């Protein structure tokens, strides 16, 4: 039970992370393709506010406040009763609403599979591809030091 609950939470968090990184247009496009329902009662928001970003002194020491970032969040309830939340950087209220509905649908056994395969999987693939491109472009600027060896071996 413990392990299952932890896996459940990890899966939900992974979906939220994917949605937070995704572009609103892309979420909407995949949503329509998958034919996911978008009917939901708004319980809070969508509303834009700030979070204060924290760092650590020296990278790993005591926390300190760096500055703020805009965040938009929403909470919805589906006609079937599930409550979903979303939080993401930026000010896109449409995205916040859809992401909260996605979180709620994911909790409904009837929709989880569709949310995972038709929405989360393609978003995740695109995100990973973009990250990989950045990684290999960055890697091309890695310095290969070589030492001039003098004398005989």
């Amino acid at each position, binding site marked *: 039970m413990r392990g299952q609950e932890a896996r459940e939470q990890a899966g939900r968090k992974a979906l939220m992370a994917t949605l937070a990184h995704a572009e609103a247009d892309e979420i909407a496009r995949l949503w329509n393709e998958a034919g996911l329902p978008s009917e939901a009662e708004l*319980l*809070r928001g969508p*509303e834009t506010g700030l979070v204060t970003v924290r760092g650590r002194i020296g990278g790993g020491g005591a926390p300190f406040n760096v500055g703020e970032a805009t965040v938009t969040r929403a*909470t919805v*309830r589906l006609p079937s009763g599930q*409550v979903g939340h979303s939080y993401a950087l930026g000010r896109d209220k449409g995205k916040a609403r859809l992401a909260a509905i996605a979180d709620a649908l994911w909790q409904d056994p009837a929709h989880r599979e569709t949310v995972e395969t038709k929405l989360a999987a393609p978003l995740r693939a695109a995100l990973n591809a973009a990250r990989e491109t950045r990684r290999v472009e960055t890697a091309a600027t890695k310095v290969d030091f070589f030492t001039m060896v003098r004398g005989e071996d």
Partner: protein
Amino acid sequence: MNIATQSIDGGFADPVFNAQAVFRAVMDAMARPGTVQDLPQLAHPPAPLSATAGAVALSLCDNDTPVWLDPPLQAETPVKAWLGFHTGAPLANTPADAHFALIANPKEMAALDGFAQGTQEYPDRSTTLIFLVDDLASGPSLLLEGPGIEKTSMIAPPGMPRHFVEQWKQNNQRFPRGVDIILAAPGSLACLPRTTRIKTMEA
């Protein structure tokens, strides 16, 4: 799931306008101590938090205002979850850390001077106490005078703290430091700011 649902339902239906209406009521009540300001039921918090006190909390509390709950409220997980979800306010560890305090049972509450009193430089850093009261007319009468009251004004909330008149006198003496009180009754509220003096108390 039950706690989750209770904590999420019952917020303002129209956050901007509802909060403005409550703010206006609190402001008028603070400006004219002893006057009773009507307030429709705008929030539906879990018991024992009342609709009026809940609406005041939704309007005034946020992530920057630690809130202290008295033991009857502290004991109710749904109340803490509801306040957490709708206001984002952290719970204060002690009364002295609180920007706001919600008191369901003023009769049994700790002394007023245990709450944050502010400093001489920043008297605004004191606790605003929100008392849940049954009404504003059935208790012992409090005759009020001070800024915002032309001559005198009267209010009679039941179930006030022990030795309240004496405690309030001490609160007056700490001026500019001291706490302010919002009396949250069903459908209405009134205020006792720190500048208001209680003249006499009928037996």
